[in-house]
């Protein structure tokens, strides 16, 4: 493994398929019948994993991701002695797609995890001070592990939805101090405080033949000219990550305002899915 970032091999897609997807977009439509600014169907299963402190399965069309939160105790960072920590990790195991080989997370997986991390961190969704146990000595560390089970495009938006859904449902094991050592009591749980009005979400846009599309499928990602992800929380932009291609200034202005518009609708969908309390088990 080298540490170089190398130009990625284009996915092989028959030329005819590529041309037809682009032509349909030019006509103002999409191959799967959606409008340009319409998300695929969203399904969220909250807390299906009993071994996790919080979890969620998100289905965004045919893209399926599962996120699990585990808690441990660590030493706070020296510059934030009264705050806990959040660590987001994303893996694309080889079962998710025929293109994926087993191995440690590649640059795409690491990028997604870091963008999701930044989006959550800067939204004010989590009160990091509430994760402090003893200032300067002990704090909660929240490990959010996201696994892609089926990759059909826009993994990043699905991953962010899964992470915030899992965090919304997280119960922290109680921390006690015994002989100056902090310990977790795993059968005594306290709710993780989150501010749902600030629910952070990412919205990914691709540019195809001068049109802007949200929530691209894998095929659409593969024929796109450019791609960008905007993190939004309560009307504020909390992260931006341009990935492939190039956008002009007007594109960016339009994407930013569209992302804020789309956010409130998307947040309502996610909130209604995660608040519908029901018996939950692992199903795909």
């Amino acid at each position: 493994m080298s540490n170089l970032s190398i130009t990625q091999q284009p996915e092989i897609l028959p030329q005819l398929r590529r041309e037809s997807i682009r032509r349909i977009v030019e006509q103002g439509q999409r191959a799967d019948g959606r409008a340009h600014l319409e998300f695929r169907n969203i399904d969220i299963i909250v807390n299906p994993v009993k071994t996790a402190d919080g979890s969620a399965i998100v289905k965004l069309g045919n893209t399926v991701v599962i996120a699990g939160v585990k808690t441990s105790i660590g030493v706070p960072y020296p510059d934030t002695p009264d705050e806990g920590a959040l660590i987001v990790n994303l893996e694309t195991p080889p079962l998710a797609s025929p293109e994926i080989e087993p191995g440690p997370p590649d640059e795409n997986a690491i990028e997604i995890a870091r963008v999701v991390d930044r989006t959550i961190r800067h939204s004010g969704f989590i009160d990091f001070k509430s994760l402090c146990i003893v200032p300067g000595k002990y704090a909660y560390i929240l490990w959010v592990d996201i696994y892609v089970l089926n990759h059909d495009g826009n993994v990043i938006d699905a991953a962010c939805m899964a992470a915030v859904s899992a965090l919304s449902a997280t119960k922290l094991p109680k921390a006690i101090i015994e002989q100056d050592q902090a310990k977790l009591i795993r059968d005594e749980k306290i709710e993780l405080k989150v501010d749902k009005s600030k629910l952070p979400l990412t919205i990914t846009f691709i540019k195809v033949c001068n049109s802007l599309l949200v929530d691209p499928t894998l095929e659409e990602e593969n024929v796109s000219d450019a791609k960008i992800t905007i993190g939004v929380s309560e009307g504020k932009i909390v992260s931006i990550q341009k990935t492939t291609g190039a956008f002009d200034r007007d594109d960016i202005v339009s994407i930013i305002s569209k992302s804020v518009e789309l956010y409130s609708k998307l947040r309502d969908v996610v909130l209604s899915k995660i608040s519908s309390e029901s018996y939950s088990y692992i199903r795909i």
Partner: protein
Amino acid sequence: MIAQQSEDLRRIVRELAREGKRFDGRAPDQHRPVRLEVGVLSNADGSALVAYGDTVVVAAVYGPREVHPRHLALPDRAILRVRYHMAPFSTPDERKRPEPTRREIEISKVIREALEPVVLLEQFPRTSIDVFIEVLQADGSTRVASITAASLALADAGVPMRDLVVGVSVGKIENLIIVDLNRVEDGYGDGDMPIAFMCRRGLITLLQADGQWSPDEVRQAIDMAYRAAGDIYRQMRDVLKGKYIESVRALSQ
């Protein structure tokens, strides 16, 4: 305090076993409820979700397909590649680190060797058949649940096989032989014996054991596992038939 709790749990589990009882109320030869689903992942050529009680695994099959790197290909048959992996949130207590452990590497190998005898590899020379397994929630018996899931996913992918392989674990606590160990029984028992059967032919393709067993206990354990495997085998056949009938119906409409 935590050490005290687990000591209490061990004592209770073992006392119950001396009375012929189990911690979760099951009879010694009673398997946990088995949930089987096939075709759960749209990208894979075949896939399955298998739950043994609170143990939940998902398996995906890709292939037969081209081998990368090429030199791994065999001129007269397909190669089988198997990866067993546990998600970091699948275990109680501590987060499991995501990189494969020595345990996961060994289990991947024994699962491959449990499947190789049934897959008609000679029909697909120079190709690879890949089986990828993720444990999403672990409550004991994950490797045998993984074998059942892999076998279902292979069948769902239409890979020709001589038989279905079914995984079942047996164990021993205080001279009591029990089937389908959960995490507590695995942790506090005296022995663990995961077994996989080619059910129709009655052949064994995975057999491991730890602990101490008399020859008679081994015989008893295998017989108990085989009976449980038969029930699961029938359930597997039904779920595969169900999906097949459904797809034929969808085609004819």
